[in-house]
C-alpha cells in the first residue's frame, strides 16, 4: 500500500493545500489591494509550478528543453497579452 503513495506526491498535495489556505487569507483577513494581489500572484504561480514540475513531470523526458521552451513562450506571450490589453483597453485612457 505504501508504495502507492510516494512521498513526493503526498508532500506536493499537502503543499498545494497549504498554498490554497494562504491564498484564502486575502478573503478572511483585511489587507490592502496590492498586498492581496501580491499574495495571490505568488501563491498561484508557485501552485502552477508545483503541478508542472512535480505532478506533470515536465522535466523528466528527453524533450524537457522543448517542453520548458513551449511553456515559457506561452506564459510570456500570455502575460504580454493580459497586460498589453489592460493597457490598451483600460489604463491607456486613465492618465
Amino acid at each position, binding site marked *: 500500500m505504501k508504495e502507492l503513495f510516494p512521498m513526493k506526491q503526498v508532500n506536493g498535495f499537502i503543499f498545494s493545500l497549504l498554498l490554497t489556505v494562504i491564498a484564502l487569507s486575502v478573503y478572511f483577513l483585511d489587507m490592502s489591494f496590492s498586498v492581496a494581489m501580491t499574495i495571490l500572484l505568488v501563491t498561484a504561480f508557485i501552485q502552477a509550478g508545483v503541478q508542472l514540475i512535480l505532478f506533470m513531470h515536465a522535466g523528466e523526458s528527453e524533450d524537457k528543453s522543448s517542453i520548458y521552451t513551449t511553456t515559457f513562450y506561452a506564459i510570456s506571450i500570455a502575460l504580454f497579452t493580459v497586460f498589453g490589453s489592460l493597457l490598451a*483597453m*483600460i*489604463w*491607456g*485612457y*486613465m*492618465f
Partner: protein
Amino acid sequence: MKLKWAFLSLVFTMAIVLTGCEPLLVLNPQGPQAETQANVIWISIATMSVILIIVLAILITVLIKYRASKQSDDYEPPHIKSNPIVEGIIIGFPVLIIIFLGIVSVSSTYKVETTPEGYEDQEPLIIYASSSNWKWHFSYPEEDIETVNYVFIPEDRPIEFKLYSYGPITSFWIPQLAGQKYAMADMVTTLHLAAENPGEYMGRNANFSGEGFAENKFDVTALTQKEFDEWVEDIHQTAEPITEDEFNELLKPGHLGKLTFTGTHLDFSPAPEGEHAGHNHGDASEQEDHSEHSNH
C-alpha cells in the same frame, strides 16, 4: 526587357504628372497638427528613401556583376562565412534608423495629442461631433447651436472636437487640419486641432460604417473670429430650436443635407462622458465609483 523598363518609367512619369498638378491633401496642411504630421511623413519618406536607395544600389550591382551569363562556366562561388564586422553593420544600420524614427514618433505623437503648439494660452472652442448612420452632428455647447454635416470654426483658435457615435465606430478626419480619431458609442474621444487660414476643408468619416459610408462626409469652413461670431448670431436669429423628437428623427439611417438648429442635443441626449460613459476608463476622477455605470 528594355521595352518593359521603358513602359514602367512611362507609367511612373504619368503617375507623377497626373498627381503633380496640385498638392495632396495630407501634404498640404492648414493647421499646426496636420503640419506636424506632414513633417513626420516627409522625414520618414526621406529616411526610408535612403534605405531603399542603398538596397537598390546593392541589388543592381550584385545582379550586374554576378550574373551567371557574365561568369565563366567553371566559376564556383565561394562558401562565405559571416563576418562580424559586416554583421555589425547590417544590424547596426537598421537599429540606428529605428532609434531615430522612434524619437520622431514619440515626440510627434505627444505633440498632436495636446493643444496645438503656440495656442496653449487660448481657451479652446469645444465642439461635440457625433456620428449617426450616415451623418455628422456638430453641437456647440458654448454657442448653443447645432449643425448637421457641416461645421464652421474660427481660425487661429484651438479647437477640441469631442467625438462619439450613435452606432458603428466611425473615424473623424479632416486631412488638412489633423489626423483621425475614432468616434465610438460609449465613450468620448478628443481631437485637438487649429486652422491657420480661412478656407473650406474636406472632412469625412474614414472608418467603414455600412452602406452609406462613402457619402458620410462633412464640410469644414474656417472663418475669422469676427465672421464666426456673426454666423453664430445669425443662426440664433433665423434657425429653429432642436427638439428631442426631431433629433431622433435625424438619427434614423440615411443621408441628410446641411441643417442648422439652435440649442444642442446634448441637453436631452448627453454625450457618453463622465457619469454617462459606458467605458469605465473615462476620467481618472471617476475611479472610485466603479459600480456606477449607466446606459444610454
